[in-house]
């Protein structure tokens, strides 16, 4: 699997009163990774809307392995995998930059709807072309 990597710094407001990254902050890190990947393939939310689609997240998992704190440098990794059904699946890893230790990993699933809120059961046209390019990129080793 080929990942996109983004470097970030843990902000003060992302850390809880025990000095650890707050569990909810990881969702925002996942989204930074996802957006970077989507940007590369012209699939940003507004670009999806231009094509007539939205892609709400319907499932999210996150496993926490280690903690980090304010001002630590982290690496956000994101990749997409090819699903058998008409959804988008993303995988994420958050690493501490210093030693590339895994802090957390997770996945999201997004369903595809028309802007008129109708669920689509198969991808077609320009949306399919862009999603296929994204999947091809992530499948390269």
């Amino acid at each position, binding site marked *: 699997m080929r990942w996109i990597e983004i470097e970030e710094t843990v902000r003060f407001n992302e850390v809880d009163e025990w000095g650890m990254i707050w569990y909810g902050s990881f969702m925002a890190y996942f989204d930074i990774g996802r957006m970077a990947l989507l940007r590369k393939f012209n699939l940003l939310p507004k670009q999806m809307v231009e094509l007539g689609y939205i892609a709400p997240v319907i499932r999210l998992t996150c496993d926490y392995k280690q903690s980090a704190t304010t001002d630590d440098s982290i690496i956000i990794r994101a990749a997409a995998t090819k699903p058998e059904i008409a959804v988008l699946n993303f995988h994420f890893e958050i690493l501490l930059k210093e030693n590339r230790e895994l802090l957390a990993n997770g996945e999201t699933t997004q*369903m595809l709807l028309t802007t008129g809120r109708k*669920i689509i*059961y198969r991808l077609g046209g320009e949306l399919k072309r862009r999603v296929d390019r994204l999947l091809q990129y992530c499948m390269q080793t």
Partner: protein
Amino acid sequence: MGMKLEEIINNSRKLCNFLKEMIIDTLKLEEITVEDIDDDAPLFKEGLGLDSIDALELVVAIEKHFDIIIEDEDVGKEAFGSINILTQFIQREFKAKIKNSMSAAG
């Protein structure tokens, strides 16, 4: 399930059972048997209690088994009304497909 596809499709009883088995296998409904599925009960929400992700899985299974495409929720809502409705839907779509391929060949 080694029977010819057409033989199953032309026999409503067999197709009905085939679809029930397909639903159980596809969605890994381990606690449900063919006998538990009511032919007229809705498959989603109040009936079998399936959700929209299950619908996506069933669409792929139907395409694989019957080469019948369900494009979106509008068609899906109708087709997944109940086992009986789905049986009729598959029979109708299959007939239309054969007719189309024959007129294309002619």
